[in-house]
């Protein structure tokens, strides 16, 4: 017989969890004590529970494993909510273990009690309250199973303190059967055949792929399929890296800040093959405008509720991307005959490409796009790039060419400022030798800046690329364009001296103000200071805007393009 706390740790060991991100407190003291007595599961002590969850989330995103966070009851839990919702919106598998007040106190407004299951219910894939130590192991098993299968997502396990003290036999089930939870994996063969036929008849095809390709680890299969068909490929923000960005067939990201060629190709395509992408409102623009063009849509998604939610689908295929693509590839092995008119379509696409929609204005100041381009060069295109939310995020997405999946780590669905630095920590815990850069803004970085302390403690050499415009730039851009330049509360004053701040935390700080210093500074950071956290404060042109842009309510082809070129 072992204690509930020991059971928790044993479960983590059984799940091969090598690291949890957390913060202790009264209700989890038994668990922390059990953690202390073993070495298999490392613990990263963050400085705020929000960061624990973000880090666990990025641990997942950057590997194929499930990230784990451990927090105490009450404020510990409420601090995690932003992180849980962030992971939920992007379908990231994660398990959050929360302490709870002892079972006999639940419902009595006990010290540090909150209704964890109730508070987190709308932003988890599932959650559990464990009331009996006999249910503990099986519940944790279920949590990992649910988090990682089907459409992935965060699962919360709420564990009262007395349960962690009670003794019980430990028996960890190898597999789990749940009558109420059986996600579909294989796609319907008839539908797949129909889809393949439709693809071969397409004259103006586009392959539009999203986060599902990354989550399904299907980038290779997608690439094979696209190569066989010689079709253009576009990625959503969440799908970047699902297809090599440096390949000729890649037309760039689509959507609100997508390229001219991607948005036009998407709009005027006669057949769309949507793979693990959910036709988000930031992707298709005004739905009426989008549906004004006649086309046929094939949609592969593991979640039936993603299909025909916002756009009517002609050939729905419910299944795991990797499995469905396998079937498609097999069918195409029998001979792939692409419609000859696709050649004309390519001509059209190349014409759109000629518009060079990512060209940007030059200035005496550092342009943010230029920093990202140089970052790409200096890191050989092989870094993990985490980001926050704002203009800098879009610049990173547009100008860092992701050739591999799981390298682009950002909050797409919830758009959570503050994720960047903890995301960098999570990536480094999962990929200890990787180059990791966090492309952020002076607004976002301050939302979790305390984590520089965690980075010091665990030697996590995140390179912070602060694209400092002294503005909540994304907000400022909207105000400039849609509110007649009334810059209400989008100017950030009283910024700290980030160099000194980094130094105060024991790190290296650099301030870069001239375009010619950008590259040398980056090189220095990634060579001389390879093993240091370097806070690089790039003072950028405060007026730089993100283009192309599809304004709210506008159609996908009604893009605003860069002003003066």
């Amino acid at each position, binding site marked *: 017989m072992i204690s509930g706390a020991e059971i928790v740790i044993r479960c983590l060991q059984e799940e091969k969890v090598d690291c949890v991100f957390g913060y202790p407190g009264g209700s989890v003291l038994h668990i922390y004590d059990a953690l202390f007595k073993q070495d298999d599961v490392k613990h990263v002590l963050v400085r705020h529970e929000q960061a624990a969850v973000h880090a666990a989330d990025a641990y997942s995103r950057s590997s194929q494993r499930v990230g784990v966070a451990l927090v105490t009851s009450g404020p510990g839990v409420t601090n995690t909510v932003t992180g849980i919702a962030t992971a939920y919106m992007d379908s990231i598998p994660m398990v959050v273990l929360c302490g709870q007040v002892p079972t006999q106190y639940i419902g009595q407004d006990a010290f540090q009690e909150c209704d964890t299951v109730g508070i987190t219910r709308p932003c988890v894939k599932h959650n559990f309250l464990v009331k009996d130590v006999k249910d503990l192991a099986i519940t944790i098993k279920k949590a990992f199973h649910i988090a990682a299968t089907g459409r992935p997502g965060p699962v919360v396990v709420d564990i009262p303190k007395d349960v962690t003290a009670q003794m019980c036999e430990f028996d960890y089930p190898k597999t789990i059967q749940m*009558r*109420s939870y059986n996600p579909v994996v294989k796609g319907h063969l008839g539908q797949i055949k129909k889809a393949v036929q439709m693809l071969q008849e397409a004259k103006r095809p586009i392959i539009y792929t999203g986060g599902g390709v990354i989550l399904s680890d299907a980038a290779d299969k997608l690439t094979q399929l696209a190569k066989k068909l010689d079709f253009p490929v576009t990625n959503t923000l969440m799908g970047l890296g699902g297809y090599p960005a440096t390949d000729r067939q890649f037309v760039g990201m689509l959507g609100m800040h997508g390229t001219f060629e991607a948005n036009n190709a998407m709009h005027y395509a006669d057949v769309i093959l949507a793979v693990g992408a959910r036709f988000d409102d930031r992707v298709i623009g005004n739905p009426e405008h989008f549906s004004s063009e006649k086309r046929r849509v094939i949609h592969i998604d593991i979640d039936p*509720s993603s299909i025909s939610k916002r756009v009517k689908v002609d050939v729905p295929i419910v299944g795991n991307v990797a499995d469905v693509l396998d079937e498609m590839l097999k069918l195409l092995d029998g001979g792939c005959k692409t419609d000859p008119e696709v050649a004309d379509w390519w001509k059209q696409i190349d014409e759109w490409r000629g518009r060079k929609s990512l060209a940007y204005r030059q200035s005496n100041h550092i342009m943010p796009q230029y920093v990202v381009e140089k970052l790409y060069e200096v890191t050989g295109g092989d870094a993990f790039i985490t980001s926050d939310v704002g203009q800098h995020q879009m610049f990173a997405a547009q100008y860092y060419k992701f050739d591999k999946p799981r390298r682009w780590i950002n909050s797409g669905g919830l758009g959570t400022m503050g994720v960047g630095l903890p995301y960098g920590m999570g990536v480094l815990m999962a990929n200890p030798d990787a180059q990791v850069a966090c492309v952020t803004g002076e607004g976002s970085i301050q939302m979790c800046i305390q984590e520089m302390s965690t980075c010091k403690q665990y030697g996590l050499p995140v390179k912070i690329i602060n694209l400092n415009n002294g503005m909540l730039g994304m907000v400022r851009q909207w105000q400039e364009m849609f509110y007649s330049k009334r810059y209400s509360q989008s100017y950030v004053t009283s910024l700290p001296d980030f160099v000194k701040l980094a130094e105060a935390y024991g790190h290296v700080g650099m301030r870069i103000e001239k375009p010619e210093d950008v590259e040398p500074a980056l090189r220095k950071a990634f060579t001389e200071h390879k093993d240091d956290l370097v806070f690089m404060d790039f003072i950028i042109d405060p007026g730089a805007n993100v283009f192309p842009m599809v304004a709210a309510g506008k159609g996908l082809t009604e893009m605003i393009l860069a002003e003066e070129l």
Partner: protein
Amino acid sequence: MRHIISILIENEAGALSRVAGLFSARGYNIESLTVAPTEDPSLSRMTILTSGSDDVLEQITKQLNKLVDVVKVVDLSEAAHVERELMLIKVRATGKDREEMKRMADIFRGRIIDVTESTYVIELTGASTKLDSFIAGLDAGLILETVRTGVCGIGRGDRILKV
């Protein structure tokens, strides 16, 4: 369009709030909701009366199916089914109204299940429209209290919702 959704769901603490939360979070209608354990006490059966376009209904069933605790979902109103609702209604029954109330209850095949000098409690089962007509047929001033269970329904013939 009016739809009756039947759900088989694990009889776990919090299962009801997951369903109710889903409806409110996504802005779906709930006109009525009933729930109770089935003959297998590990399962509950829930009936939700809702309304919405075909697209909304498609999302409702898909989203319900996505809930980890939900075992099965059917839209009963898609095919032949029977539906019933139970109402208990307390009415003033004095003077000439006493006889009139009894007569009304008989006409609607209701039963008087509680009697005092001045009140009756009438139990009435049937389609919701029948309960509505009963209420409409009474002098509103005589109705003291009503309680309705909301609709529950079951498929006809071989249409069976079971694990």
